[in-house]
């Protein structure tokens, strides 16, 4: 077991982790942040996406012990059900959620994109989301949601 100090959603937490334990596992089981989902646990589906220092990362591929001193944002740090972020609000309005299992990862991928690119084109949005699988929606409304959020942020 290794003691590591993590900065998650702006709060510092010291947790003891196994050397091989993934960030995903630590977030879910040690910090109770179950908004980050386990889709494949092998780096393919994107449902475990979090932001590390503002960049999207697959938390199932990241070792928790290596996250010392990095700023981690999970879906719980983006907004809440009562006070959603503009991107989250756009997902609700565009009808971009079905089963919702891919949604936290999608929202974080979208947040990361919009921080980098203010007014992404539709192909850019698709490209940015292409590592996040959704089995329900056919993606149309998810792309619409990101577009809506970007238009509102940079009219």
């Amino acid at each position, binding site marked *: 077991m290794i003691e590591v100090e993590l900065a998650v959603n702006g709060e510092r937490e010291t947790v003891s982790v196994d050397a091989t334990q993934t960030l995903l596992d630590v977030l879910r089981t040690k910090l109770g*942040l179950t908004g980050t989902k386990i889709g494949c646990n092998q780096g393919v*589906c994107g449902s475990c996406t979090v932001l590390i220092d503002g960049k999207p990362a697959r938390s199932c591929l990241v070792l928790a012990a290596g996250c010392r001193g990095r700023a981690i944002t999970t879906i*719980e740090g983006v907004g809440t059900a009562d006070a*959603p972020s503009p991107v989250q609000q756009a997902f609700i309005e565009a009808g971009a959620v079905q089963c919702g299992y891919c949604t*936290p990862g999608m929202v974080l991928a979208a947040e990361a994109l919009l921080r980098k690119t203010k007014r992404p084109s539709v192909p850019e949005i698709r490209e940015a989301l292409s590592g996040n699988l959704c089995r329900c929606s056919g993606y149309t409304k998810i792309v619409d949601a990101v577009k809506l959020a970007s238009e509102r942020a940079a009219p």
Partner: protein
Amino acid sequence: MAKRRTGNGAAAGVVHRAIAHDSAEKHVSGAALYVDDVPEPPGTLFAAFGLSARPHARLTSVDLAPVRAAPGVVAVMAAADIPGKNDCAPVFADDPIFADGVVEHVGQCIFAVAAATVEQARRAARLARIEYEDLPALLTVEDALAANSLLEPPQVMKRGDAARAIARAKHRRAGRFGIGGQEHFYLEGQAAFAIPGEGRDMLVLSSTQNPTEIQHVCAAALGIPDAAVTAECRRMGGAFGGKETQGAFFAAVAALLAWKTGRPVKVRADRDDDMEMTGKRHDFVVGYEAGFDDAGRIQGVEFMLASRCGRSADLSLAINDRAMMHCDNAYYLPNVSVASYRCKTHTVSNTAFRGFGGPQGMMAIEYVLDEIARALGKDPLDVRRANLYGGRGRDVTPYHMRVDDNAAPALMAELATSADYRRRRAEIADFNAKSPILKRGLALTPVKFGISFTTTHLNQAGALVHLYTDGSVHLNHGGTEMGQGLFTKVAQVVADEFGASLDRVQITATNTGKVPNTTPTAASAGSDMNGMAARNAARTIKARLLPVAAAELGCAPGAVVFAGNRVRGGRRSMTLAALAKKAFLARVSLSAAGYYRTPKIHFDRARWRGRPFYYFAYGAAASEIVLDTLTGEHRLLRVDILHDVGQSLNPAIDLGQIEGGFVQGAGWLTSEELVWDAKGRLATHAPSTYKIPAASDCPADFRVSIWRKGRNREAAIHRSKAVGEPPLMLAISVFHAIKDAAASAAGRAVRLDAPATPERVLLALEDAAAAADAPKREAAE
């Protein structure tokens, strides 16, 4: 670019409105709880499985001592340790929870282990020493047909004399092709959480479309009454049929280990295990012979449908029945014979998947019509339209049901116009004439899908509604939420009955203790049936409230109206809360169970006659692709969809179902390929090797509309139509657009199996080229 029209559904009120999914706020913020997110009480254990490495073998030795001795292990269970029945099958008692003496597919479970952590359980499971004596294994449909290994005798459905009509027809065409299976790839894997209570009580949280079956299977495995087990499901992270029966095994393992240890046990399959252990869409081999006239009208057609069912029956009989009942799709087949072979193989037992055999049946007839068009040099759309139901005497299905709501001709005509089919057809011909390597293809195909379970007794539903004295409403029903928006739709129906705003209706988890003896949420019938059951419950309460309201408001009971969270009568009104309180004081019950059974349906399977469906749902899609004939890869350029949902209960949710269903269908027919090796092992057991559509694969130009003229002739809930499954089959247009482009490249019809992967397309082009060369070579010799 995505354009959508929501069509009808502009009516005021809470039904027929585009309302967001009830959990949308929770989903976007990560606050929605799935089974694996439920906090674990102290002492919770985690399970892992020991799986068969062989497709068919006797277990000569199973040594679990090293598993028991591994760190963190609390319990290990195999077949002999089950106190009750070793079975988790839905119908035929042929799915042992743990293999007993014999294994019949790679990935079949032999034992399970509970340990303090997931990691410890998984490490321990790998320590078992298992010895096998191999037995002959039948892996494919062809293997099984050759060995006559069938789950039941072949089923035959006939009307007229197909053989004679084919023999007499001016033209004939015969062939054979394959249709691949499909992995569900629900993003949330199979999961269950069993929590022992007092005495023998057991609570099982399960990611399931069928809580009642979870309850029954767990009770039987534990040897306790059904009443001692409560199964609950708040939501699933996708299901698509993959959690209609497949959740039962995982729930049973959780319940057994919880019983054995007296501690809560959580089971979550990791992705590779999930893909190996659970059933998939059936792959089919289709043989056909058709006789037709100069216009391409079918005079007679014979189909042979053979599917890989896997090691047990599961739902395979009903799935293959539905395949038979959909190989007419939207077309009148004057003389038809369908023979269906349900092959028992030593592979995982295949199961329900959105469409439930219907998609494979529809592929059969669409393939034949495409072949007919190519044989006659006609546009496939013309041949399709010439064969549609409609006109004198052309309205009876092969199972003798009258098609009296035939929407396909009007829908297809409207779509051909709005999608600009003719102009684009000409444009594509021009383009292809000038483009040697890139070829474009276009296809417009209809969908007619029968709504109701073909197993008649499953068409029933229950609901439980309470009105509280503050005017809020508790809603429960037997349907489960898998992302399709069922809970939202049923809440809309109940809010509408009480004239309440949607936020007054509390949606609650499906629970066998609240609504018992339910059937699975499947067959697209979830909102039809549960909406009706919930409405009946609400109406029962309203009927009891009427005299109270009439007395309070000083009007006739018939004049009482529920609207705007108020109850009005004459010129007076009161809040729903005030009325509820008055009713309570007057000792009137404010709780009711509702029940519904679908009317009009019946089916005689021995004679293949009846009215198995309450009504049909329709749709049509036009897909255009561009094919690179050097690589075999294609891109979706434009898709136009017109889909009939009757009068939509919720157009936003319905559009999501249409778009998502189409894309899932396109994945099935293009990129999603399941490969088993010669040892019966699934080679594509990881998401890295099994490719479902990503955002970048979707059509560049996607135009989806709900059909404005859509009506349900039957009195389904608010005259809506079911929408869960039918849109998947719109993607049959994608497959035929690829076939169209390949034919254009080859200069003749190509034989193409599904999925149309790049390899398959290249193979089809090579075969066509070789066939074109053959006569030349003969002439030269």
